[in-house]
């Protein structure tokens, strides 16, 4: 053990004690400058960190402002497009259904007039029987036994009966004709019912469309007003779209991987299996990947030409003739590539079968013969079909891709803002920690020189007027730090 530091090497305890006393005296003498040094170190560390935190917070605010502007502009454009579509739908509905409305109204009025006339005809009843009933009643009041009266009465009865029968017959005929008229009402009623039903449906559809327009208009007003509700709604919508688009793209990537597996092996027959682009990347694999990417690009152009997606404004701005040409070119190339893929899928099956046959011939033990019936051809047919269908399925990734790109701006902006805010918080936290650490060090320093401080306090007790100064200074420093914070 090195004893050079000991004052009395034979007595370590006394040496330590003496050194401790000396150190304490030195530290006490250097107390004020040391306190100042520690506090200034704390402030030096805290200042730039707080400055950095403030700058980051400002940057986050600017980013949030810009994100908000972009989000609202994008949302406004989207809602405008939707309202435009709704108005187009209403316009088409009005043009298609309500342009014949005057004819429909005339038809309705004609049918109603006819029904009214027929109804009026139904109201015409045959004249009532003659007022013989009173005469017969008077005659019947004549005393019985008068033969002449009896005969007259019998004659009257006969006549009345005949007239009654005739009247009944006329009434029956009249009712029969009215029933016929009423029966003739039925087609008109049905036609009326149908026409009114159609009008009701059209009006209902119009009503629902106008309700949708109202909802979109309300949303549009909120966006134009730029309130927080609209921003929150658009942000949530962007996150949802981003998640859905990402999910669909992952599924599409799975499809692309299957597609790649289908054509990578047969591509080696075309470009060679021994060629490498990098140490682990075969040319045949890159060629297969390029084919898949070209198919996806053709799908993209196809959907652009169909105006389903709007990733390339140049295509959207083309005139209809050029756009249709691009559409046909993209479709032709896509069909051709799909055909090539189907052929490659067939070749893959043949290559695998050939390799299998070779391995069987090389094997020492004889392999059982495989029966190659129609069941054995199902995988081949399946592979060919898959090879033909997958390019068309991949063509549709343009839709989720566009959604991902558009929503990615909002999602990325929100995440970046959050990241900057977290960084600002971390800087502020470290700055505060540095300030508190300097205070702790000051207190620890005083703990190390507690004995001289006690002695000082003892002397200071006798001179109270001078003792207030240091504590006031400490308070001032703390106050200054708080103000600075």
């Amino acid at each position, binding site marked *: 053990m090195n004893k050079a530091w000991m004052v009395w090497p034979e007595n370590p305890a006394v040496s330590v004690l003496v050194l401790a006393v000396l150190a304490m005296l030195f530290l006490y003498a250097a107390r004020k400058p040391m306190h100042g040094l520690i506090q200034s170190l704390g402030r030096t560390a805290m200042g730039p960190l707080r400055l950095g935190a403030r700058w980051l917070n400002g940057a986050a605010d600017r980013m949030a402002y810009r994100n908000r502007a972009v989000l609202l502009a994008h949302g406004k454009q989207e809602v405008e497009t939707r309202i435009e579509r709704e108005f187009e739908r209403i316009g088409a509905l009005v043009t298609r259904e309500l342009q014949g409305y005057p004819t429909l109204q005339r038809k309705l009025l004609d049918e109603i007039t006819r029904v009214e006339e027929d109804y009026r005809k139904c109201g015409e009843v045959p004249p009532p029987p003659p007022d013989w009933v009173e005469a017969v009643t008077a005659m019947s009041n004549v005393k019985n036994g008068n033969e002449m009266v009896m005969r007259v009465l019998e004659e009257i009865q006969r006549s009345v009966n005949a007239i009654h029968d005739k009247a009944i017959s006329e009434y029956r005929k009249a009712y029969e004709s009215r029933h016929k008229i009423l029966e003739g009402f039925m087609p008109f009623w049905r036609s009326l019912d149908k026409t009114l039903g159609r009008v009701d449906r059209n009006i209902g559809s119009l009503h629902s469309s106008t309700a949708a327009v109202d909802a979109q208009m309300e949303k549009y007003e909120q966006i134009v007003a730029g309130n927080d509700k609209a921003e929150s709604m658009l942000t949530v919508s962007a996150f949802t779209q981003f998640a859905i688009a990402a999910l669909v793209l992952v599924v599409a990537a799975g499809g692309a991987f299957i597609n790649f597996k289908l054509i990578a092996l047969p591509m*080696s027959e075309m470009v060679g*299996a*021994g060629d490498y682009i990098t140490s682990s990347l075969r040319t045949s694999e890159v060629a297969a990947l390029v084919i898949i990417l070209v198919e996806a690009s053709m799908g993209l152009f196809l959907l652009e030409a169909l105006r389903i997606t709007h990733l390339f404004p140049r295509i959207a701005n083309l005139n209809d003739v050029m756009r249709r040409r691009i559409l046909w070119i993209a479709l032709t190339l896509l069909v051709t590539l799909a055909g090539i893929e189907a052929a490659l899928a067939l070749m893959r099956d043949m290559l695998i079968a050939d390799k299998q046959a*070779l391995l069987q011939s090389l094997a020492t033990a004889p392999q059982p013969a495989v029966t190659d019936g129609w069941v054995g051809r199902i995988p081949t047919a399946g592979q060919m079909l898959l090879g033909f269908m997958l390019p068309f399925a991949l063509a549709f990734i343009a839709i989720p891709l566009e959604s991902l790109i558009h929503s990615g701006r909002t999602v990325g902006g929100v995440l970046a803002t959050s990241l900057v805010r977290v960084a600002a918080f971390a800087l502020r936290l470290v700055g505060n920690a540095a300030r508190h650490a300097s205070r702790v060090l000051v207190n620890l320093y005083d703990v190390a020189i507690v004995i001289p401080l006690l002695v000082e306090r003892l002397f200071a007790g006798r001179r109270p007027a001078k003792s207030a100064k240091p504590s006031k200074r400490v308070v001032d420093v703390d106050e200054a730090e708080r103000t600075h914070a």
Partner: protein
Amino acid sequence: MKKILFALSTLLALAGCADPKEHSHAVYMLIDTSGTYSQESAKAQLIVNYLLGTLQPGDSLAVARVKSRSFSEKDIIAKATFDSRPSQANAQKRAFREAIDNSLRQVMPSRYTDITGAMIQGAEYLNEAGAGRKTIIVFSDMQEELDKVTVRDFPISLQNIRIVAVNVVKLSTDNVDPRRYLGRLDDWKKRVEAAGASEWRVINDLERLDSILARS
């Protein structure tokens, strides 16, 4: 934009510089036909079949006999660099197998065993093939026997070549004193490592043929 152009040009440069031979594998197999070892030819055929089933399009394979003096191209039974198209490569493998079958059926035992000469010949073939990975498979008991005229006691070069000794059977004298067998293998190991071989490996269990082409 500049970065994208740089990446594209780098990719193109890589595509242009990529040497297909760097990724190919060349295998030179020596079959000992001396004395009683010539009876092991059925096992040799098994190994050739394994190699044919495992090597890829673009790889090279040559099979040669080890005779009394084997530093000669005439001892190569069959050799082929497989086409880069898988279908053509399969056809070549079938033809190769036929050639080996015919040749091994008519094998005549030799009096001496010139393993060193065969190795020099194999190294020459492999270096000419220019493959990225080079392997010499020695199907032998590793007991070299030379006549008085043949000179093989000089340093040889087997730079970057893997040497795999397969089916190194024990001789009757090895059974008397196993140190002879172990010493023989040890001598060969020292010799090929001194010649610059990248690896020395002994495989006696023919169920583990996958270790022949496996990287260490």
